[in-house]
């Protein structure tokens, strides 16, 4: 019995160790490269732990002429998309969970089917529509495209959060003379706050890292978002890996923090949406 116990513990610890190693391995190279000075970058075999640690790559990345520009562009696009998506999706989620109207099921299925659209299948006509509207190379064009791809998931998530808020609370508020809107603002919104937070964070994560639309819709270098902008460090002949990895770390930190904060809510929203479909 004791030996068997010990055996499972060893297997278990080994499993966890292997899992951690698999997950963190590329990050080791990322971190190590970002801390190396230029002359240490191209030694063979590569040193896992840099001999002299330097932060010059981080300052170089941050001071790269357009990096802050890209950063602000990404921030602007992501935040505006988030706000708009949340407004539109909260309305729809309310309608789907609280109201009854002809075609409710049908429209819910429309939302469900929309999640299956692949970006690459839509990018050509969307490119043509956006350019016909004169929105190429502009943030509104990009934001619209991002909304189209995040609204379905956002409605789905918010709906699963809203289903869990009991109707009776609103009903009793309305019994006491509150209007529908008042009942919604006073009863539902406060309870929905974690759900809204998780959904907003999800939308933010998706737009912050989106690549294809940004690549196709934006050609003006000053309007690029971070995922495209980071390619600047990939020179024509030689890539400056040190600066690029430092820039990568700077870009990733906001999403890491954001994700750690909302993790729990997001998971509960996603899994309940899955089981209560």
């Amino acid at each position, binding site marked *: 019995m004791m030996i068997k116990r010990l055996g499972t513990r060893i297997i278990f610890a080994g499993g*966890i160790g292997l*899992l*951690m190693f*698999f*997950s*963190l*391995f*590329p990050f080791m*190279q*990322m971190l*190590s*490269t970002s801390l190396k000075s230029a002359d240490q*970058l*191209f030694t063979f075999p*590569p040193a896992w732990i840099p001999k002299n640690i330097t932060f010059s790559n981080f300052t170089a990345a941050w001071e790269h002429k357009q990096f802050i520009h890209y950063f602000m562009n990404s921030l602007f696009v992501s935040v505006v998309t988030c706000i708009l998506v949340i407004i*539109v999706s909260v*309305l729809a989620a*309310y*309608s789907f*969970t*609280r*109201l*009854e109207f002809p075609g*409710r099921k049908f429209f819910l299925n429309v*939302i469900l089917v929309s999640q*299956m*659209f*692949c*970006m*690459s*299948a839509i*990018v*050509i*006509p*969307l490119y043509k*529509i956006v350019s016909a509207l004169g929105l190429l190379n502009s943030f509104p064009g990009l934001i619209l*495209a991002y909304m189209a791809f995040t*609204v379905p998931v956002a409605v789905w998530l918010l709906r699963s959060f809203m289903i869990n808020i009991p*109707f009776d609370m609103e009903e009793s508020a309305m019994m006491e003379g509150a209007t*529908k809107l008042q009942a919604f603002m006073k009863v539902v919104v406060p309870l929905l706050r974690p759900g809204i937070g998780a959904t907003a964070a999800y939308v933010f994560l998706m737009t912050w*890292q989106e*690549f*294809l639309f940004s690549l196709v819709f934006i050609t003006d270098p000053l309007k690029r978002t*971070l*995922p495209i902008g*980071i390619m600047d460090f990939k020179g024509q002949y030689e890539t400056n*890996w040190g600066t690029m990895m430092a820039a*990568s770390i700077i*870009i*990733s930190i906001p*999403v*890491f923090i954001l*994700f*750690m904060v909302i*993790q729990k809510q997001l*998971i509960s929203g*996603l*899994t309940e949406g*899955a*089981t209560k479909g």
Partner: protein
Amino acid sequence: MRTRSTFLGYMLIGPSILLLIVLLFIPLVYTVQISLQDTDLSHGAPKWIGLAGYVDSWKDGELLKVFMHSTVWTVCVAFFQVVIGLVAALLLNRKFRFRWLVRAMVLLPWVLPGVIAALTWRLVYDSQFGFLNSLIAKLGFGQHATDWLGTPGLAMFSVILAAIWKGFPFAMLMLLAALQSVPHDQYEAAKIDGADGLRQFIHITLPSISGVLKTVIMLVSIWTFNYFEMIYILTGGGPIRSTHIAPTYIYELSFGHFNFGEASRVSVFSFIFIFLISLFLIRQMHKNERN
């Protein structure tokens, strides 16, 4: 219960539905329209060819190859993401010290922006400066200068491994949440009946998480099929076109050759492909609910 209110109901879903119609469904119709034209620049001005293009697309064998790559890519990535995700979820479902820390670390690949993940893997796979060759040497298999992304037979394996790494934490997250909602008393009862770990897993764990498991399989398959930037950045479809999948091929056709007609036909095929997979999986899910 739900209040009947047709007007308000439509008003509130209006913005979302309108957005989806204008930005997803109309473009889809537009794609179909473009797909009926010959837009090959070497053939002169675009002309209407109807459904003939759909047949011609398959003639030179390139499209067939792309779809075969797409299938291998989607099946391998989705399968291993779910399997590794499930194993990871089972491991992390046990209580141990610093579990929160391990879970946070394991989630990092998923949270990492896709472009950055791809760039990092490019470095890892580098024949000289990459840590992968260096790891193999450290493990005692000798110094190699394997070009992970530049060798035709190997490149597909390499992009698949990177994609598995990027996405498995999502499967883990969802499955872990599902595992945590399996009632404890069921395991207690099974223990009394003398069921061992494996039997408990098959008879209690799997049925209880099957709903979430199927959703995960569906989402992961769709995402993987459409996953563009990993291959675009790692190999660009090469070497010798051995890693071209549908999205990278569509991108090359449309923004490399400006052959929007052919690109649209590939899009339509992709769409049908995904639609059939989803339909199949959704059916399975409903079947499950009825039982």
